[in-house]
């Protein structure tokens, strides 16, 4: 019997309950940090802390939100502890799955997503996280408020402001695409 088997609580294993959210945590970490290395670190740290708490008997009713809360707290600790050394990875270097689009469609999409990526990194981290949790992860304002430990009104305000910035970026992109055609 392995060591980790011994300390596994009854019920679902850690893998069954939490590791299925790996992609969710990673892709949010990637946009939040703007760096692949930092995203790797942040993701691993999140799951390490979650695993430690899980094996110590933490009771978790909403695994996804719980993981995001750990991730958000870890991100804040990392950001305030050390001077920022991270170089944001260029959008072109971000990992991407293969697609079946035409080259022209790929170019248009990448231009749009490049602006989106930049708009995200340019905005305050709190806005970025609120928007990612809402649009990418499909969490409710209440859930996001729990993760970010702020009132729902603050979540609403952050999402409003973040989307205003994203709209502006996409509008600029649309103008550029139109002039190219």
């Amino acid at each position: 019997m392995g060591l980790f088997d011994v300390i596994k609580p009854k019920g679902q294993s850690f893998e069954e309950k939490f590791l299925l959210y790996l992609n969710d945590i990673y892709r949010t970490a990637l946009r939040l940090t703007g760096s692949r290395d930092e995203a790797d670190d942040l993701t691993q740290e999140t799951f390490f802390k979650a695993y430690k708490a899980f094996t110590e008997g933490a009771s978790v009713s909403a695994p996804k939100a719980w993981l995001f809360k750990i991730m958000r707290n870890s991100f804040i600790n990392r950001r305030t502890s050390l001077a920022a050394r991270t170089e944001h990875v260029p959008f072109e270097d971000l990992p991407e799955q293969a697609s079946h689009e035409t080259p022209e469609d790929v170019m248009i999409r990448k231009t749009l997503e490049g602006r989106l990526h930049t708009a995200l990194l340019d905005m305050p981290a709190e806005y970025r996280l609120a928007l990612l949790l809402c649009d990418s992860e499909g969490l409710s304002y209440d859930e996001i408020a729990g993760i970010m430990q702020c009132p729902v009104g603050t979540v609403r305000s952050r999402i409003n402001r973040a989307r205003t910035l994203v709209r502006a970026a996409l509008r600029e992109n649309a103008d550029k695409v139109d002039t190219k055609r």
Partner: protein
Amino acid sequence: MPTSCKRIGTLLNQYIDGELNPAKRMLVARHVKACTRCAAVLDELSLAKAALRAMQSRVEAPAFLKEALAGMTASRAPGPRRRRWFLTPEFSWGLATVSILTILVGYLVFLKPEVSACNLITAIQADSGRQASVSEVSSILAYFGRNEGDMIRTVGLTIQNYNCKGEDALILHMTVRKDKELLVYSHGNPADIEPRDSAGVRLKRVDIERKDFYVGDFAGMKVVCWKMAGRPYAVVLSEA
């Protein structure tokens, strides 16, 4: 009384996020049907939401991360493949982010399971986040004349950041055997890279297969620290 665009504008984000009650939802729907300006804003917001969602849906965690975390929950060897930056030959005590250290096998108070060497090596790898390689751990064991049967135990590990003379540094804080604590300080200045124990005594530098390791004796145990890719690792070997 017609609802103003200003009022509707404040509700559009909540509308597309499904956060409005039915009454307000109907209010917005009715307004945008009649107002081209608000309808255009709604389209832009919906596009922004959809574009972000689509962009994120194409991102997947790298394979090595999946393997590493799967290894954390399974007690089997071999460990996950290393990323290429594990192979860098340079070890410097430069600035390090707060990250996961390595290799602690926690004791439960009333359970002392028999742990095979295979599980220990896996635990070493699995618990680190950034895994120490099997070869490094094996090198350490071989250097000190230990074999895989030696128990490696610590209880509790934290990493703290602190500022020393204007430089960022780390404290690797390990609690060993519940009643003994070891603090290993890692200074950020490359010129002062030897970690010190809690008494301020520098750990001794040893060369194991052309890499720098720092060794100290503590509470009858041997502590071995090293740094890789800017992150500290530690192994505690019990007395044979």
